[in-house]
């Protein structure tokens, strides 16, 4: 039964374009206990973790997805004839970090933290669907409120917002930098 489940999971993840969530799997598979499901995932992930496999199963944005392993990056790029993937500009990344840590947040709040007008960056991020507008703030001018999107999680390979670098981690890096300077 367990092997059967493993195979089904493999099939379902294989065919999914978006990260496949546990809920969705349960919906499809029907009655299956959480333990069985987790055991299935584990077995499947172990299978793919082996070095004779070029692809793996990653957990991102709350679901499972097939992805190539990073060490084979160059081959994919050769096939697709992509020299380099475009990265976010540092201004956009900075804006995105602020939204990630301060959400829900308005344009004015973001600009205040950066000390720089961020309207243009927000536009870019919206276009890339890394952030979304979730409503308007009940404040003078009713400014728009921004949040990060599912796409954001996927883009950075985060399973949920809890996976963002923690405050302590940041504090530690700052401490190390300080010691380096002095």
């Amino acid at each position, binding site marked *: 039964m367990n092997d059967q489940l493993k195979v089904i999971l493999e099939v379902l993840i294989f065919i999914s374009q978006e990260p496949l969530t546990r809920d969705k799997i349960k919906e499809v598979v029907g009655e299956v206990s959480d333990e069985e499901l987790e055991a299935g995932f584990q077995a499947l992930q172990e299978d793919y973790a082996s070095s004779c496999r070029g692809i793996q199963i990653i957990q991102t944005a709350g679901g499972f997805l097939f992805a*190539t392993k990073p060490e084979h*990056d160059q081959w994919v790029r050769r096939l697709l004839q992509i020299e380099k993937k475009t990265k976010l500009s540092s201004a956009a990344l*900075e804006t995105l*970090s602020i939204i990630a840590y301060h959400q829900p947040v308005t344009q004015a709040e973001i600009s205040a933290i950066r000390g720089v007008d961020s309207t243009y960056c927000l536009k870019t991020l919206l276009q890339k669907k890394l952030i979304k507008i979730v409503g308007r703030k009940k404040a003078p001018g009713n400014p728009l409120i921004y949040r990060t999107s599912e796409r954001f999680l996927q883009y950075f390979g985060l399973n949920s917002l809890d996976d963002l670098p923690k405050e302590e981690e*940041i504090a530690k890096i700052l401490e190390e930098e300080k010691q380096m300077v002095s």
Partner: protein
Amino acid sequence: MEQENQEQPETQVQNQDFQLPTDSYQVKLEIFEGPLDLLLFLIRKKKIDIHDIPIAIITRDYLEYLDKKEQINLDREAEFLLIASLLIYIKSQMLLPREQEAGERDDPRQVLIDRLLEYQKIKVASTLLREKEEDQQQRWIRTFLPPVAKSEEAELLVVSLFDLAESFFLLMKRKEQENFRVIKGKDVSVEQKIKEIISFLEKNGSMDFLEYFSAQESMEEALVSFFCLLELIKNHLVLAVQEQLFQTIRVWLRKSQTPPHGPDHE
């Protein structure tokens, strides 16, 4: 350790830039994301404790930077000047005698310190996210072409005249907003257009009318194409379906054997 390695080249670059002659100043300011970035750089360069900034020195350094700039690009420099004014304001506050020996809380620098600390955190978070971005970009996932909805799969809704009219006005509005610079004296007849639409449908199977409409060169042509659509519907030559209000109208050629109510009959 990794972080150190990442940081070092960056600081080196900044230091090199800093030693460049004054005329390359304009380039230098560009390397900073904003005024706070510049301030943090100055603070780090002077090995100053962020919690105890000698405002006079930092203000001088900061203004020196701005002074070297010959031309002021208002869009960008306004933000640098705003922080400059904050620095000068704090400096003046520090000079004023205070009634009581103020506690730490009354430190006029606190506003600035809080902002710098917050910004510093964000900068670190950004570098961490950058690492994740780089790592993630090496993991490729399959991308699919969006599946083409087949006529029998799509949830169909018979379009009423009102829906059509509604879409029409929507389209007109969109067209109106466009700037037409070239006026072409091209005559388009309904007959011609009908032929064009039918041959398009024969070739492509179906048509996104909204797209087709916007692709028309002139307002006149766009109008004619809409009349054609109405005409074709009237003569039971095509089937027009709008899945939702304000969405596009999809048009199919009616096959002769298809009964008048076609695929939307379920």
